[in-house]
């Protein structure tokens, strides 16, 4: 019963994260939503690890490492963009347009 609830929380958190990425335009908030999605996945890993062995917990460490690195690079980019444009609104940043 515990696993079911834990996975439900994880799913809700992940959906919140996705929704945030889809709806918001502020780079920092999108960034935080991505972190939310990562941690939702972490939660699912940990919950499943209790039943299926320690592999899931090892994965969580990897995810946390990647998330930390991503946070460093991502925030640096956000700062750089802000210095350039005085804004972190992603609607103004469309250099990739074909």
């Amino acid at each position, binding site marked *: 019963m515990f696993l079911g609830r834990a996975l439900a929380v994880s799913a809700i958190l992940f959906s919140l994260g*996705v929704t945030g*990425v*889809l709806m918001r*335009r502020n780079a920092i908030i*999108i960034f935080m939503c991505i972190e939310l999605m990562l941690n939702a996945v972490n939660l699912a890993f940990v919950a499943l690890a209790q039943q299926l062995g320690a592999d899931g917990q090892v994965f969580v460490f990897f995810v946390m490492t990647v998330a930390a690195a991503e946070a460093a690079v991502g925030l640096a980019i956000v700062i750089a963009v802000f210095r350039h444009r005085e804004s972190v609104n*992603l*609607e103004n*940043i*469309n*250099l*990739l*347009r*074909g």
Partner: protein
Amino acid sequence: MNPLAGTAADLVGLTVLLPFLGFLVNGALAFLRPQAKRTVSVVGVGSVALSFVLGVFVFLAVLGARPEEPYVRTLWTWMPVGDLRIAAALQVDQLSVVMLLVVTGVGALIHLFSVGYMGDDPGYARYFAYLNLFIAFMLVLVLSASFPVMFIGWEGVGLCSYLLIGFWYADVEKAEAGLKAFLVNRIGDTGFMIAMFLIFAQLGTLDFVAAAPAAAQHFARGSGAVTAIALLLFLGCVGKSAQIPLYVWLPDAMAGPTPVSALIHAATMVTAGVFLVARANVFFALAPVAAAVVAAVGAVTALFAATIGLKQWDIKKVLAYSTVSQLGYMFIGVGAGAYAAGMFHLVTHAFFKALLFLGSGSVIHAMHAAYHHTHSHADAQDMRNMGGLRAHLPVTATVMWVATLAIAGIPPLAGFFSKDEILLAAFTRGAQDPLYYGVWVLGLAGALLTAFYMTRLMLYTFHGPNRTGDLERPHLHESPAVMTAPLVALAVLTVLGGAINLPHVASLHRWLEPLTASSAAIAGAPEASTGLELGLMALAVAIAVGGMVLATRLLHPEALLPADRAPAERGFAKLLLEKYRVDEVYDALIVRPVVWVSRVVLWKGLDAGLIDGAGVNGSAALARGLGWIGSRFQTGQLGTYVVVFVLGVLAVFGTLMGLL
């Protein structure tokens, strides 16, 4: 073991190598030191002369060993592909050694003549480089042991011919004459190549030694395949040896320097077709229809070209049409199965026609020098501007009379024996196939015209009053010794050349027997009775003398006017002067339609329209269009990407769920 192994015949590769080295040295000098004329002369003449000396040794070896089988000297394997194994091999036998001597011997004399004739030309080194390269390729052609190696020589001499016809390439007309020769020859070469493919497909070999017995075994006499092979080979000969309908390039080839006309377009290269028929004689013996075509084309060409020669004013043009006509005689000989007679005429013709061309070169040299002195622009080759040159060029006049008597067929000069033997062969072959009687009649008519136009040439050039011009006349001089010496040497050969096939002296016929025996066994060798032989001989002499007498009676050199004051020709004479307008007909029927199709259909339609338009630019436009559509998806908005991404993930999961 061939009796020639270990003798001088092993040196045969050197005879090819020496002129080729001469080409390399002279070619390098042409770029680096074009003024070093003395070195160029020594290398150019020396390499060919040395080659001739080696050729004599090879000849003596063959004479001593009398091999029944050809001696094939394999140098290296050239093309091993599947069943096809082509070796770079040279073949020493009775036929190739005769050609070896003619090519290097006459070639050396003409090289020597060129030292004088081309002495003042700025392209002296280049000229000798080409000439040496020609000798090397010609030797490859005659010494080759297989069709593909022969083809190398065949194309090589064609290249040298092109280069030397257009030697003075700054003159557009001359450059175009070279191009014409090259293009017309391509038609014939296509036939040669297809014939080679057929031979390989049918017999599995391209070596002469293996192909002849294989052909005799494989083909039934008169079967379609062997007739096709023989006719296609003959198409190659028609191009190279300037027969109807591809003869049109040879008269234009006179744009080249005169010694080139003597060497390439009279004595050696143009006779390659006759040599090829003699070399592939088994195929022609197996295909009587093809042999008849050879003889018929030869006969028609012999008469047709002779009629054009009657009315030409350019001294070299007369000789050019005479060459076409004489090549026709050679084809009558080989077509009638008398390969020895055809080769005999080839050899004697090489002597007297080289002599005639070099003689005309000597005349042109003198005329040119005289006109150069007075800065006149009159035509140095027009016989109407000559006349009475006997007094100014006594040596040239004498040797050219010798050659004229020889070509007309006056005994005991070389041309008499060879031409007589060809006509005799055609006549005796008539007993088997009446067509050859027609060939014989055409040949006789051609002989009459030959005697006539040659006498005309001599009368207008050397006799009667001089028409060169009063200012120029004192500047007409005999050529230097370096030019007259080869003339005298060739005159001696012209006088004595008939001896190589004289009963009781030497017999070219028996000499070539090891190579022609099998085709004689297939096609039969009709014998003529001595009485018939003597009768035909008397008739031939009567016709030759008749032609010369007729010319002296009908022509009046003293009534001739110089070229710029001469009245225009009318009627049939005009048609002859314009060479029956064959060039114009070819131009209208072939050249212009081809150019039109090339320009309108192939260039503007196919190349520019289809390939460039639809193919190249079309595919580029297609790629750009697709790229434009693809780029519409790239909004640059992160949100859009994420939406698409999430939708994608959902779609994938949805599908997976559905599958589970």
